């Protein structure tokens, strides 16, 4: 039974406007295995999953299913379900106010001969299913009465009962605690032993090694390789995910930049935010670029947001320029000369229906207050200055920002902060999803800012980029700051700290 290939994706290509999301990716799933799909953010994991489930329409490539390798192409998740591919997402897509049994059989309820729902049969079948999968719930209770973990298991049960051969679990463990994760794993193993092929997408390295049999790694929309779990120790996995190949850009940081002023700008002691970041200490000097590194979800964004007040720190003290301060909201941080470029540009960065000018002026105007409107001539002057300085490609100052490309939108937000002339700037993934040319421009800009005596927190998933721009690196793992690296900054040393204890 085992080792029989049940799903084979060959040469999948997919482009989004301006971005090659997947190029020539192969993926093979065998029955009775748990297969981890790994990769950094933007590597193409979810795009690949969406191609499989019919959410995305890929341009090139083929998908084969079943023992007879029947070619399929799904156009909707419903079609994928009919072909035996079921997906369970991080957020449970069920109806919380319906009962467990109703959720299990919604859309395919057993009927009586009068065409009404046969509640008795439904309850019995639901109980059988729960018993078989060893899920301890009362099927007549509303779904919302159970924890997210149980809801997720119920969602999986529903998928399994629909005779799925392939089960995709997309980040199912993100909101679960250790105990719940263990329960979920037990269920996954049981399903595996029944011959179901499970694709497991996660950011947690530990979990991959706890439950998976095989790993496929993607990077920048390309297949890095498929490995047996025993052939790929943690350090090698991290290396495969991040890519070791240095691109040919030379170092933009000269040696003298390494000398950093003694003056401490930010001094954080024991700041924390429950569930997001454990208490940490961090001091940042004037003119220093400090990098926060770690895998996604390791708390690198959360640490920065905690300083800025985007997520209000719940414990600890923060000194800015030697003075103890309390930051309740971003505006307080801005008054102290801070700025934050958030990692999710669409959700927290751009105000898409406002013009380029309005987007650039936003932070400066909110510092000035609602009553003191910045005169139009000055707004135009500043806008034009930054359009030139950062080479923002826009038809006019009044173009809506949503009409610009991703890289130019990013520049608009950088301009928004530069306009406020900050002392301390937090750049969270400023180069994600932008082309190489713009990337280098932004990296140079960061080094320039440090030259001018400004301090920068730089967060990026790409280690090379950090090595090129940062004076010092702080490493995070599982919501905790685990170390700092000042000397001997190399890929090897950084990855070692990111991966943590060597295993297998």
């Amino acid at each position, binding site marked *: 039974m085992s080792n029989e290939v049940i799903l084979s994706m060959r040469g999948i290509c997919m482009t989004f406007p301006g971005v090659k999301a997947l190029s020539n990716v192969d993926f093979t799933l065998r029955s009775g295995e748990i297969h981890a799909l790994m990769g950094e953010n933007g590597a193409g994991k979810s795009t690949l999953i969406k191609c499989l489930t019919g959410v995305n329409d890929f341009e090139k490539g083929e998908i084969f299913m079943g023992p007879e390798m029947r070619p399929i192409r799904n156009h909707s998740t419903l079609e994928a379900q009919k072909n035996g591919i079921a997906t369970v997402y991080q957020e449970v897509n069920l109806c919380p106010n319906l009962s467990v049994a109703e959720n299990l059989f919604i859309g395919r309820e057993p009927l009586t001969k009068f065409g009404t729902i046969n509640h008795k049969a439904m309850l019995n079948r639901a109980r059988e299913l729960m018993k078989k999968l060893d899920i301890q719930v009362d099927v007549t209770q509303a779904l919302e009465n159970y924890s997210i973990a149980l809801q997720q298991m119920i969602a999986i049960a529903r998928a399994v009962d629909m005779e799925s051969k392939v089960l995709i679990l997309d980040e199912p463990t993100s909101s679960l605690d250790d105990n719940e994760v263990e329960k979920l794993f037990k269920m996954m193993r049981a399903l595996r032993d029944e011959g179901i092929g499970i694709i497991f997408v996660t950011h947690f390295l530990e979990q991959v090694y706890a439950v998976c049999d095989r790993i496929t790694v993607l990077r920048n929309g390309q297949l890095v390789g498929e490995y047996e779990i025993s052939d790929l120790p943690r350090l090698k996995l991290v290396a495969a995910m991040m890519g070791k190949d240095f691109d040919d850009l030379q170092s933009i940081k000269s040696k003298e930049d390494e000398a950093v002023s003694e003056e401490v700008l930010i001094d954080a002691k024991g700041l924390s935010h429950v569930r997001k970041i454990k208490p940490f200490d961090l001091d940042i000097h004037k003119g220093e670029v400090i990098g926060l590194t770690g895998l996604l979800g390791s708390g690198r964004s959360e640490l920065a947001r905690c300083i800025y007040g985007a997520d209000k720190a719940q414990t600890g003290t923060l000194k800015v320029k030697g003075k103890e301060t309390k930051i309740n909201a971003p*505006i307080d941080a801005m008054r102290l000369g801070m700025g934050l470029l*958030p990692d999710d540009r669409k959700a927290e960065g751009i105000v898409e229906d406002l013009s380029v000018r309005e987007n650039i002026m936003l932070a400066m105007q909110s510092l000035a207050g609602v009553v003191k409107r910045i005169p139009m001539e000055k707004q135009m002057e500043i806008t034009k200055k930054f359009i030139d300085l950062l080479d923002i490609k826009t038809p006019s100052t009044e173009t809506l920002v949503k009409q610009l490309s991703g890289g130019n939108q990013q520049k608009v937000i950088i301009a928004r902060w530069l306009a406020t002339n900050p002392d301390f700037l937090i750049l969270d993934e400023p180069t994600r999803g932008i082309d190489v040319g713009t990337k280098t421009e932004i990296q140079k800009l960061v080094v320039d800012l440090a030259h001018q005596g400004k301090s920068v927190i730089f967060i990026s998933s790409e280690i090379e980029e950090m090595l090129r721009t940062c004076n010092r690196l702080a490493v995070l793992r599982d919501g905790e700051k685990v170390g700092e690296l000042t000397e001997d900054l190399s890929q090897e040393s950084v990855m070692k700290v990111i991966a943590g204890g060597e295993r297998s």
Partner: protein
Amino acid sequence: MKSVINWLKKVSKKPLFLPLVSVFLVLVINLVYDAIQGNYVFEFLKFELKEGALYGRIIDILNRGSEAAILAIGMTLVVSSSAGTDISVGSVMSLAGSLCCMLLAGFGVTHVRELGELQMPIFVGVIAGIAVAGLCGLFNGFLVAKMKIQPMVATLIFFTAGRAIGLLLTNNKMVYIHLEQFKVFGGKLWIFPTPTVIAAACILVMAIILKTTSLGMYVQSVGINPKASRIAGINSVAIILLCYVICGLFSGVAGIVATSRIYSADSNNIGLNLELDAILAVALGGNSLGGGRFNLAGSIIGAYTIQAITTTMYALGVAKAQAPVYKAIIVILIVVVQSPAVKAYFAHRKAQKEGGLAVAGRS
């Protein structure tokens, strides 16, 4: 010919294009009607001075549409910032009027005929009425901005309770203020109808605020992306709260005007269904009820368009009871023409046509 088409294409992209087209359509209906009836063709536009006051259909529209126009100002801000509507404005109008009359007459008194019978100066009563409306706005804003309750549910409270509180204040009776000094707000100022002048003043004040402060940008930014606005230092709770307070204050002003017209506090009827006109005005003005970018001029034109439709109906001899049917038909037409689905359809047609031409050119 081609230049005309190009000009039309350019103009049709302007935000005020559709609201203005709606007004124009209503005008044409009037002209055609007058022509058929054998009246003077421009009867609609005619106005004259009678007994020291302006009369005419267009004057009547501007006069009768005042309350809706005043409400539309506040409603525009509320819709833009919170992506929801304030359905309490009509009831709050009535509450403002009731409080004003009660304070002027004294609790339980139903008629004031002499200046001497007034319990306090008229302007104090008027300001108290507007202030209580502002408080209602503050309450609505608190529920929406701070407690994150859906705007329609939050404002439903005053929608139902507003008139009842008004009845409590007036002891369940109509309170009449038979004084010229009070009637002036709904009467005439020199030769102009006062409501028109008040509406113009309100619009002017708001226009100046939007021109000289950055409130407009704040409101739109919060309406489009509250999270990004917060990161950029804008206090979205305060901005949404402010919008509801402004909306409340304008409801108060509209309430005083409506009360003064009939020189009495009629809790059950003042501002009845006006919240719907105000919301419709915002939509007719080309503003998305999903919040975000707004165009105040559009909303104002929208408000007067609704009144123009109503007035035209009466002029056409439609009975008052049946007028809403025809009004509904016209509104459906205007709203459907502006809907994203129709716009997408025409964009699609255009693309197809161009694509078809390209193919034809190749063969």
